[in-house]
């Protein structure tokens, strides 16, 4: 279990627990990226494989999905599916605008894909994607998925996983 450093004063949340599947290459890549980002409040990472630590969250297993990522606030609010990715972005000041954009638009269902692109391309990708309207961004995500599905390399396989 790792604890991220604090870079900004807390406002509305004391801490965000990020429960992740440490056996998935894609999720481990997300974890490494998240761990390296400055956060608005501490992020505490808990691998699903650490059963004793997971047990501290009660019946959290019922929220576990194939995404391999769950976000839990310090007050126990659980965010699964697209919500987990949105909350992870919400915790990062450099990407927080994405959390709000993904939460109110037709992009919400694609939060995982956007998150995956951001973890791969970082701020440069964020800036470029930020210039696109929702329609063009959706087209880009579809294009990225269809392009990835024709490849066989490790990085392409990771992209395919993110499209699911």
């Amino acid at each position, binding site marked *: 279990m790792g604890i991220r450093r604090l870079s900004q004063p807390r406002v509305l949340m004391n801490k965000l627990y990020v429960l992740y599947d440490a056996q998935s290459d894609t999720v481990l890549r997300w974890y490494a990226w998240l761990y390296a980002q400055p956060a*608005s409040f501490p992020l505490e990472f808990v691998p699903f494989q650490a059963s004793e630590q997971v047990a*501290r*969250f009660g019946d959290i297993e019922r929220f576990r999905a194939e995404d391999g990522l769950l976000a839990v606030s*310090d007050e*126990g609010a*659980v*965010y699964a599916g697209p*919500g987990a990715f949105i909350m992870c972005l919400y915790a990062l000041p450099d990407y927080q605008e994405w959390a*709000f954009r993904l939460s109110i638009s037709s992009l*919400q269902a694609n939060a995982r894909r956007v998150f995956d692109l951001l973890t791969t391309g970082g701020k440069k990708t964020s800036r470029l994607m930020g210039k696109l309207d929702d329609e063009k961004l959706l087209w880009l995500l579809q294009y990225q998925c269809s392009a990835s599905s024709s490849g066989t390399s490790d990085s392409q396989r990771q992209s395919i996983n993110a499209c699911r």
Partner: protein
Amino acid sequence: MKPVMIAGIEAEAGSAATVWTYIAYLLISVALTVWVARTLHKNGRIFLVDSFLGNEAIADSVNHLLVVGFYLINIGYVALALKYGDKATDARTALEILSTKVGLVLVVLGVMHFFNLFIFSKMRRRAMIHRQPPPIPAQGYVKTPDH
């Protein structure tokens, strides 16, 4: 050809005009810099307090540091720009040169002013985002190590 004595008197008059132009330039430029800095210090504080989530100590500290930087850049520019340009030979050229120099200082002050406003608004915008609650509702609740 002018007699040597007359040429000398003219040169001396030109030199005096240049010195007076420099003195006026320094006085006007520094006064303008102080006025703009005080205005920024006074009216920028509220933005900074808001940006730092009501933490007045940090806001005042940053405000002070911004003003120090403002003084250093502007007075530095005024000092460096002092000797550049034409030299005054009479009252008319002295006024023209003074006007040009002070005009340049005003443009630099304006650029610095808008740069400061840009910084203030960027900090405030960031602070506003940080103040937003989570953008999506929770799907459920569990106990946590904190509760």
